[in-house]
């Protein structure tokens, strides 16, 4: 017994998105009072650099990148290229069996580098599991990110050394941690800010709704950076929401902005604006970076089961790296030498990543019992001793042979 009529009733993906966007209210909060930032192709989309690499004006957000130097622009380009290279290397290392799994950021470089570069050293970042570009901006050695995907640890770095929290796999959990951390920052009277990353799928989780509530009620200095890459594994954004995600913020009483997530300049500017609001005691902001996941959800996913190739192709035309390159070339901010040097640097990074991963040792067996508690625990001690005796019994056998 089949139900075919439902397929006809389901709104088409693109139509759904469009109608939701056009039916939507104006951007909320301070941003709404200023330029609506509708320079891009999508309504309500803040854009400073078109897909063709043309710089466009935006009265609200231009000031946040007005003093950017050619060197800084080249830096953003370099960040994106190296991050993409690192990601590609990790993907092929997974294919070669060196990693158990990989969650690729391909296509999301601008969202991550733009927002990541907007943070200050004393800000604190709460990522999900795909924020390799943000980690790069925070100075985390990219090879540190690979341990958990290789299966040698469940984290792999000290969050406090770069103010970059551990990757969080349970969807949405970290938004509450970010909010609590931000509440602490405010209590301390510090002027740093906090940024929490999550996906469009995550926006459905209760934890995310609760983090919006807490951050609003306590006016916490936190920026919610939602990378809407259009898919939560196989589910398109319409399976999570009927209104554009940035509009959610309005119901909680703080501003929400949709930014072109493939435009690194716009992401930088909008995130700087939001972080400054946080620093100045103006509370939370929701940024929806409208972008696209070019690859599979993870290396164990098969996107051909649920999405068409043409969709990816249409997003390839909006590639974040290409558009900045076009702009750099047209404005003579970068020459051939720069690109050649970067290519060499990129090769070297790939090589280093490969070497480090292949040399990564398996953890010591006793690591199972390490750090289970900060203050120790009798049961863990007892089980560790049993484990040791059991291991030793094999060693004895071996010697006996």
């Amino acid at each position: 017994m089949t139900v075919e009529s439902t397929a006809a009733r389901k709104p088409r993906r693109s139509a759904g998105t469009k109608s939701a966007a056009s039916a939507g209210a104006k951007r909320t909060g301070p941003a709404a009072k200023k330029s609506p930032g509708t320079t891009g192709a999508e309504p309500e989309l803040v854009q400073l650099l078109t897909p063709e690499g043309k710089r466009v004006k935006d009265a609200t957000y231009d000031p946040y990148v007005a003093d950017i130097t050619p060197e800084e622009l080249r830096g953003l380009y370099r960040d994106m290229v190296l991050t993409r290279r690192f990601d590609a290397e990790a993907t092929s290392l997974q294919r070669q069996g060196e990693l158990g799994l990989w969650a690729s950021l391909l296509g999301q470089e601008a969202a991550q580098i733009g927002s990541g570069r907007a943070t200050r050293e004393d800000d604190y970042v709460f990522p999900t599991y795909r924020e390799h570009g943000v980690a790069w901006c925070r100075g985390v050695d990219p090879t540190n990110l690979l341990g958990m995907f290789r299966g040698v640890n469940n984290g792999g770095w000290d969050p406090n050394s770069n103010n970059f929290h551990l990757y969080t796999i349970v969807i949405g959990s970290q938004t509450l941690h970010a909010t609590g951390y931000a509440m602490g920052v405010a209590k301390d009277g510090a002027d740093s800010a906090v940024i929490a990353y999550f996906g469009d799928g995550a926006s459905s989780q209760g934890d995310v709704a609760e983090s919006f509530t807490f951050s609003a009620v306590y006016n916490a200095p936190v920026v919610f950076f939602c990378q809407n890459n259009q898919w939560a594994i196989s589910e398109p954004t319409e399976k999570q929401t009927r209104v554009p995600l940035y509009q959610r913020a309005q119901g909680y009483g703080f501003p929400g902005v949709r930014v072109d997530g493939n435009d690194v300049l716009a992401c930088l500017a909008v995130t700087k604006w939001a972080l400054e609001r946080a620093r100045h005691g103006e509370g939370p902001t929701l940024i929806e970076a409208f972008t696209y996941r070019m690859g599979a959800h993870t290396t164990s996913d098969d996107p051909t089961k649920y999405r068409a190739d043409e969709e990816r192709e249409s997003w390839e035309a909006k590639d974040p790296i290409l558009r900045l390159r076009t702009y750099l070339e047209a404005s003579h901010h970068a020459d051939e030498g720069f690109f050649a040097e970067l290519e060499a640097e990129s090769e070297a990074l790939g090589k280093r990543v490969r070497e480090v991963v292949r040399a990564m040792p398996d953890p010591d067996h006793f690591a199972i019992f390490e750090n289970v508690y900060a203050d120790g625990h009798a049961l863990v001690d007892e089980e560790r001793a049993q484990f040791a005796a059991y291991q030793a019994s094999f060693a004895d056998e071996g010697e006996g042979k």
Partner: protein
Amino acid sequence: MAAEKMALAKAINESLRTALDADPKVLIMGEDVGKLGGVFRVTDGLQKDFGEDRVIDTPLAESGIVGTAIGLALRGYRPVVEIQFDGFVFPAYDQIVTQLAKMHARALGKIKLPVVIRIPYGGGIGAVEHHSESPEALFAHVAGLKVVSPSNASDAYWMMQQAIQSDDPVIFFEPKRRYWDKSEVNKDAIPGPLHKARVVREGADLTLAAYGPMVKVCVEAAAAAQEEGKSIEVLDLRSMSPIDFDSVQASVEKTRRLVVVHEAPVFLGTGAEIAARITERCFYHLEAPVLRVGGYHAPYPPARLEEEYLPGLDRVLDAVDRSLAY
């Protein structure tokens, strides 16, 4: 129809298909269960054949999934909910424990909650954090929930039918590392009751009791012990709430020794309950204390250490030797 060999995951798929076909009130709900067919493809093809009204891709919200399934059940539906991985059930734990488990009692038995919650569980597939846990004791501890786990395709097929037909909420733990193991499924055979344990292999010297992913390991251990002249009985418990203590008792009265094996941490686990009850029931029959083999009191380790963590053949045989040495 003759018996057919199929993988455990496929057996669940066929079981769900049969249930959807038989009863228009049966619904499948969860993340990615539609077009993708679930991350393990257990629901593959069901949405295509039964439509989006019956096989529902839900928003990414576990509390929402279980909470709305409760509402649908109150309205006469029989939702079968998929939680993508063991470690992701906890956002829904509140709904399961505070609502799903207790509503029937609170309503003086006047309402029924025929909700099945499918959870792929356990380790051994080299996954990252939160993808390899065995939280069955956390659910079995809660009155009002029934907790089961098949170990082979035939049980998977029939136990799913029975779970869906049950008027109680059933937490259906699927041993994910056995998803691809094939065995015979006879769709005409009349199965035993859902909560009855099954003797997988007869033996005289010791009983190994297990469920889900560890049954296979225990059968292998029994075969290895056989070569050393030890006769081991293997019991597949199939249900962790209720536990078929009568079957365990009958086996122990015969073999006089019991080792309980599971992947979950030993401390306060299913094995602890079985050890206590069997000690009460069979004190004068036992030749050795009931031993337990399982996980440690530590977070599930990263993939490269899971072989140390998970009970394998050697750890089971070691416990067998220790028991026989008494």
